């Protein structure tokens, strides 16, 4: 794949096609995500970025093609093996997706209790360490309904790294965050990736933030990759579509107007 250089790929998406109803979301999509780096997947709204994360996590199956995670095709695994393989992945959902009936502490302890047989005092220590890493050790006994949007996402991040995963996926981590919360998240994503030796994939359309922290970026439009490479390479890219997206221009190859008939005819009949 272009742009990932000599780094070995952690995720390989090979000729994926995916239909939702009759609408084709991806058509023979190919991409690779390098190991140990922060990769940003960007693209206009509604082109299936979240769907792509779900395909990578094996939550939905492609109609054709395959996804290899560290050389393993999740879709060939049995249900139980698939759930075991997922213990090596963390995912931060757009809404945080904290369990609303459990406290912050219990939310983070949940994956630990499910996958390890650690004694209770050790679980307590691990949970407090993860909470400390996202700066919310003091909020351990709060309920999810008492947290602000930014705090919810940080708790969800602590839960996603509870099992020390190899891969962490972020679904629109910056959407709807105030500037301070956004700054905190940007810093955390970078820091956690480097400190824990993770492979991070983030899906976003906040171009400035995403480009500021990623090592590698992929732009998807019309169900295919239209540009990939380091942030600097993308900014130099000549393709009009990539230019429009990176610079946030309102009109270009992606038109401002949704396809419609002649304007004059519509008004005058």
């Amino acid at each position, binding site marked *: 794949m272009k742009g990932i250089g000599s780094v070995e790929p952690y995720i390989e998406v090979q000729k994926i096609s995916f239909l939702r109803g009759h609408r084709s979301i991806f058509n023979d999509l190919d991409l690779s995500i390098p190991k140990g780096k922060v990769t940003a997947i960007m693209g206009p709204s509604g082109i299936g970025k979240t769907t792509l994360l779900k395909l990578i996590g094996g939550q939905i199956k492609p109609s054709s093609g395959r996804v290899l995670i560290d050389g393993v095709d999740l879709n060939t695994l049995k249900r139980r093996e698939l759930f075991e393989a997922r213990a090596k992945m*963390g*995912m931060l959902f757009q809404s945080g997706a904290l369990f609303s009936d459990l406290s912050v502490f219990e939310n983070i302890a949940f994956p630990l209790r499910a996958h390890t047989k650690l004694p209770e005092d050790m679980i307590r220590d691990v949970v407090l360490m993860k909470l400390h890493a996202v700066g919310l050790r003091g909020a351990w006994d709060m309920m999810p309904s008492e947290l602000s949007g930014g705090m919810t996402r940080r708790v*969800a991040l602590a*839960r996603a790294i509870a099992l020390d995963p190899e891969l962490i996926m972020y679904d629109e981590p910056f959407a709807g965050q105030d500037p301070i919360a956004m700054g905190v998240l940007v810093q955390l994503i970078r820091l956690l990736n480097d400190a824990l030796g993770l492979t991070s994939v983030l899906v976003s359309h906040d171009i400035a933030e995403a480009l500021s922290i990623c090592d590698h970026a992929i732009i998807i439009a019309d169900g295919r990759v239209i540009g990939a490479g380091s942030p600097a390479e993308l900014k130099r890219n000549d393709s009009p579509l990539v230019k429009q997206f990176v610079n946030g221009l309102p009109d270009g190859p992606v038109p401002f107007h949704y396809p419609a008939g002649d304007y004059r005819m519509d008004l005058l009949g």
Partner: protein
Amino acid sequence: MFSINQGWRYSVLDFIRKTGRTGLDYSSSVGRSGLFLLRAISGLPLSLDGLSLLATQIYKVGVLSLIIIVVSGLFIGMVLGLQGYNILIDYGSEQAVGQMVALTLVRELGPVVTALLFAGRAGSALTAEIGLMKATEQLSSMEMMGVDPLRRVIAPRLWAGFISMPILAIIFSSVGIFGGMLVSVDWLGVFEGAFWSNMQSSVDFSEDILNGLIKAVVFGLVCSWIAVFQGYDLVPTSEGIGIATTKTVVYSSLSVLSLDFLLTAVMFGGI
């Protein structure tokens, strides 16, 4: 756009297409719900953790439904006592009111009304709860943490409904018989000895009580199955949750009433 002729042809084709699509959607949903039931039934974790999840759900589904079950049972029993007395007195056999109240409750009204109330009180709550967990991505996040929501969320709820329903039906019938006694014995003056002895001599354990219990078990399974499946399979939007909750109550009620006829025909109809 279309000429009249083309429009007519188009709407016929569209009708056929839509009918086919509905049929396909329906069959696939039946298949999915069947597989879902098998997985959920076999998925209950038999550990201490699993049992504590089950106990929590039995509390939510069963214990919290007690008030509506007890109050409805009492009133239905009282109405049965009153109506039974008024009809039987014309034949001079008002002593048989105990037998009538008990048989009506144990064979029919106990399981059926409990199931209908259960679908409205507990079934709709189960669907809405699971649906909201799906809409807020809690089920997805559980999957991504390598925990199967079918085992963790669905199985305890399904089993809780399955276990609670027969117990609720027994409570309903008992309270109903007590209500019938209050009206006919304490109010209308039926001789208490006759009330109880007539009941005792005419209610058969295997034919009446056991058959009533079998009905309650079947209704419990069907109602909980419909409730958890509708919650798990819904379109994760606020509108989707509303539709699924309504579906739970409608499908459960229709299934209970039609299954009741089938079961009654098999058990008491001499087939």
